[in-house]
């Protein structure tokens, strides 16, 4: 007999707690308990523990015990109350200049040591990355499918006033945030490489928009292109050699592809209305994009170099955001008929041929869908009941986690 457990945790405070919604058969997930063998570690002990628990949950492979157990790293003993678990992860967290952690992973039933590892990070503020690395390593130690996306930076832009913005680096839980660009109006950040050493962004600080690439470690800034009207980098090829741009050199917004090395561009769409948001499909020989060629924003597909355009989505009257990973497509659809009524935008998962469409959200304004690098998770931004959150959907386990996000996001990438 299979048991289906649905847990809904209400978010009471607008601080560091996360909303979580689980709808899935949970029998296949490993039960794991955390044992904290630390002393006090700069007051971040509870946050670090909570981050480990969130990471284990969203990985989709674990049922973490939410009790903050205390214990010792000495010996290979497991408390009797924890022997019913599958695994026990003991850890110590200490701060002495740098933030350090030691972990030991055990089989709970017989206290067999599976693996151990040391970590250090040069800033206490970056403790979330330490937790993320531990969980992604535990995941790998147990030979589960990788969840390396936990370790990635999220980059987003936020308006701070009229024609003013900041661009911020964060971990996926938003507990770590650092402003990387301030001053003026700089928008639409997009990671330029898989290693996340650089990102593209559009500066509006001159007379016309200019696309730059910034190295986040040495601050070197490279001018890529300028264009009247608008200029946005919407996608980057896997090898980083080509980028998709929404550009309007003749005041006509269309999708272009640029060879980053030679700076040569070729126009991909030619419709006289609005074509924006191009994303590569698997193989990078075709794209999905948003167009109003039917009189309203909708999702279309086009092979690069071909004139033929095919409609992917046949529902909704305003589908104005899209992302793709391989053959998977996610889009945001407006579901309020009253232009000035309470707006609902929901996310839908579909395929490049429009089949297999299913909803991913049901309430609020859900926008900016972004696939993880392996396509198994989706990041998005949710506005609901005056709260702004960044959400993550694990497509395999169908879990969702939400983290508070102060301020309105203009654009986001991870």
């Amino acid at each position: 007999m299979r048991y289906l457990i649905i847990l809904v945790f209400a978010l009471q405070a607008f601080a560091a707690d996360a909303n979580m919604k689980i709808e899935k058969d949970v029998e296949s997930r490993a039960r794991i308990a955390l044992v904290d063998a630390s002393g006090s570690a700069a007051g971040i002990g509870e946050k670090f523990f909570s981050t480990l628990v969130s990471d284990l949950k969203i990985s989709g492979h674990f049922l973490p015990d939410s009790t903050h157990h205390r214990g010792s790293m000495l010996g290979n003993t497991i408390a009797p109350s924890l022997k019913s678990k599958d695994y026990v992860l003991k850890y110590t967290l200490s701060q002495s200049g740098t933030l350090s952690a030691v972990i030991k992973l055990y089989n709970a039933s017989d206290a067999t040591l599976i693996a151990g590892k040391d970590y250090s990070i040069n800033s206490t503020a970056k403790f979330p990355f330490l937790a993320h690395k531990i969980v992604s390593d535990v995941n790998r130690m147990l030979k589960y499918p990788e969840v390396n996306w936990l370790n990635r930076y999220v980059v987003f832009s936020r308006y701070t006033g009229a024609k003013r913005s900041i661009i911020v680096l964060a971990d996926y839980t938003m507990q770590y945030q650092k402003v990387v660009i301030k001053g003026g109006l700089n928008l639409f950040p997009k990671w330029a490489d898989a290693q996340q050493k650089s990102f593209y962004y559009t500066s509006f600080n001159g007379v016309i928009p200019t696309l730059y690439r910034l190295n986040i470690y040495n601050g070197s800034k490279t001018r890529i292109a300028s264009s009247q009207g608008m200029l946005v980098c919407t996608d980057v090829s896997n090898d980083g050699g080509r980028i998709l741009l929404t550009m309007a050199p003749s005041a006509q917004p269309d999708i272009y592809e640029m060879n980053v090395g030679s700076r040569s561009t070729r126009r991909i769409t030619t419709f006289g209305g609005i074509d924006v948001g191009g994303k590569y499909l698997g193989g990078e020989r075709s794209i999905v994009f948003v167009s109003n060629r039917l009189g309203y924003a909708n999702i279309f597909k086009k092979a690069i170099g071909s004139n033929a355009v095919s409609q992917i989505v046949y529902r909704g009257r305003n589908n104005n955001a899209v992302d793709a990973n391989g053959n998977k497509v996610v889009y945001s659809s407006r579901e309020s008929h009253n232009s000035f009524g309470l707006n609902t935008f929901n996310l839908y998962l579909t395929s490049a041929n429009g089949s297999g469409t299913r909803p991913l959200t049901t309430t609020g304004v859900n926008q900016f869908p972004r696939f993880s690098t392996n396509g198994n998770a989706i990041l998005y931004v949710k506005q609901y009941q005056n709260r702004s959150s960044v959400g993550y959907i694990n497509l395999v386990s169908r879990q969702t986690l939400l983290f508070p996000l102060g301020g309105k996001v203009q654009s986001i990438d991870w």
Partner: protein
Amino acid sequence: MKNKVLLFSAVALLLLSGCSQKKPKPANTIAGDTVTIDEGGVNSQNRFNGSTDGMKSVFFNFGEYDLSYDGQQTAAFNANVLKQKLGSGRVKLEGNCDEFGTDEYNYALGLKRAKAVKDSLQAQGINAGKIVIVSFGESNPQCHEATDSCYARNRRVDLHLLR
């Protein structure tokens, strides 16, 4: 004898070093500190909220970028102002949107609005080479209230002289 002792010691040292408990290697986590750059920004002061230089903003309906009758009248007014004041300078048209929808789509929508105003000015004799158009999407609202009137105020094209 002495050589044998030295040889034995060397071998013993090698064996003992090999027996030492292996410590887990530290992981490579984050690759160093990231920078913060200050772009300053030429337009860091909000001097351009709404049109300037005696010109009037042109307003649009929700989701649209065609000029309404009122919009055409306003564009005609602005064309007359430009004929008197433009001289050797240029005019910058800034397209704006309300908050609905993603910002990238709204930037394109704002651009189409600015293009519509440009086309109207051109039709009334303003040289296209003297017109620069930019979209600011949702980034430059004149108001923030969640009301129909505020949304309508933000769906506009602003005009400014560039000298």
